[in-house]
């Protein structure tokens, strides 16, 4: 549904986005991550048709952006990071304007629907210049989905929302993803796990990772590990049986001690192998590095 090939954007001598290539299919929610200034918003702005790429092509649903920008824009719902609004309009008037701009036959009806979906009834008749940051985000989100587009580009959609509102929007994005291709740019890594089926991490304008949250963890040495609780005197035998070193983590249950070993192997399997060697294992579980650590590791190494 979304195809970006060799996307590059230069601002004078600065290359903000460098040869970025990816595709997003319907049903996918792509988390677009990266440090500040990595080129996330610039990429989304190119995909939305606001900025013209210095090189590369964009195709939405098979239509080339350069050849048919208006046809492409009809298929995109875009929520800019800056949540811009016309201050002199009420929330309802703003949504009606966006709906009419998308050529909706029943713009008024759709406005009522998205007001309900994004929970905007309280500010329906309020001037957008006077609403809170949270409402600004939700109003921009409502404007992005008003024409039920097959592609959603959301630049930090939960910025400024309280935890309850964040959950609502994440749930909404997950619900919408069934029949849409969605790209979400965000800084919040917990959000990525909650709603994204795939991650792209950009650093200094280039893609440094394209995969899942677990792929991201694997980038950290020891990012995925197992934790086993065994008696301290069995440590050497366990290391021989498993063929790798155990690092002590601290006291465990029933007089055991917890050890960590760097492996992708499932804890149940490790426990079974220990049992075969006659070693009792009181506890076996997975340990995963926090995504923050993995993100820091990956983007720092590219600096």
């Amino acid at each position, binding site marked *: 549904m979304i195809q970006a090939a060799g996307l590059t954007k230069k601002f*004078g001598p600065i290359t903000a986005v460098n040869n970025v290539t990816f595709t997003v299919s319907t049903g996918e929610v792509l988390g677009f991550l990266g440090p500040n200034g990595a080129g996330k918003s610039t990429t989304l702005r190119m995909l939305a*048709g606001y900025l013209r790429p210095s090189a590369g092509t964009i195709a939405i649903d098979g239509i080339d952006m350069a050849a048919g920008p*208006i046809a492409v824009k009809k298929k995109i719902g875009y929520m800019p990071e*800056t949540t811009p609004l016309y201050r002199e309009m009420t929330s309802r008037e703003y949504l009606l304007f966006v709906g*009419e701009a998308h050529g909706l036959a029943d713009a008024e009806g759709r406005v009522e629907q998205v007001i309900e979906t994004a929970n905007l009834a309280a500010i329906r008749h309020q001037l957008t210049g006077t609403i809170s940051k949270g409402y600004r985000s939700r109003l921009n989100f409502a404007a992005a989905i008003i024409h039920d587009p097959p592609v959603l580009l959301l630049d930090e959609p939960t910025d400024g929302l309280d935890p309850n509102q964040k959950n609502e929007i994440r749930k909404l994005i997950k619900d919408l993803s069934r029949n849409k291709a969605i790209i979400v740019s965000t800084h919040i890594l917990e959000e990525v796990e909650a709603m994204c089926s795939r991650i792209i991490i950009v650093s200094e304008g280039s893609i440094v990772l394209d995969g899942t949250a677990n792929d991201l963890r694997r980038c950290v040495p020891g990012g995925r590990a197992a934790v086993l609780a065994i008696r301290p005197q069995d440590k050497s035998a366990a290391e021989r049986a498993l063929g790798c070193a155990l690092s002590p983590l601290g006291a465990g249950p029933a007089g055991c001690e917890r050890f960590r070993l760097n492996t992708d192997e499932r804890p149940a399997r490790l426990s079974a192998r220990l049992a075969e060697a006659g070693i009792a294992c009181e506890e076996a579980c997975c340990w995963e590095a926090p995504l923050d650590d993995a993100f820091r590791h990956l983007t720092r190494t590219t600096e």
Partner: protein
Amino acid sequence: MQPSWIILKKELRGYACSPLAFIFVTIFLAFQMGFTFILGRFYESNQASLDIFFSFQPWLYLFLIPAIGMRLWSEEKSSGTIETLATLPLGMPAVIAGKFLASWLFVLAALLLTFPIVITVFYLGSPDPGPILTGYGMSWLMAGAFLAVACFTSALTRNQVISFVLSVIICFVFLLLGFGVFHEYLDFLPAGLLDFLSGLGFIPHFQQATRGVIDLRDVIYFISIIVFFLILNAAVLEGSAES
């Protein structure tokens, strides 16, 4: 609904809700009447015509029209709504046309609100309605030319004050060209070029109409100025998408 019409409607709604629009109309009417009756000594002239009324208009437009046009794009840029506009499936030419037409209609509304002076002239004497009609028509066309310049300068910057100043400077040059004041300073230029530059002045093209003569060349001239500066406006916005 046509994209231009959607933008036109949005902009007109903005004028209707904006206190600035009412302030502008009030100032325009106050200055227009002040110039005509006080500076122009309308009663003392003892003429049942709007010559005096029209003679001040280019100078009034010089400051008031850039004040209307300065926000058209600068505000969109500074508030970030340009990003919304550019990503809606409208097409920039339609958006430019819609914004320009809305402002031009607003100027027309302000111009028509000067109707009491027409009633006054008809009450006091028997003026020829021809020059009044052609004068109003050409005045609106000339206002469109001022406005197109303001649209262009507004697209250049996110700062409304800079937009205003640039617009006033460009329009001032167009006013001076009509007086031939540059002839003395530009006498090193070929005579043909000097004549061409003189022909670009706003005032001679406008004055013909206030005498009741509609010359198609004057109409084409003002329309050309409007189209030229709106094309420049589009080029500037196009350049923004590049950078």
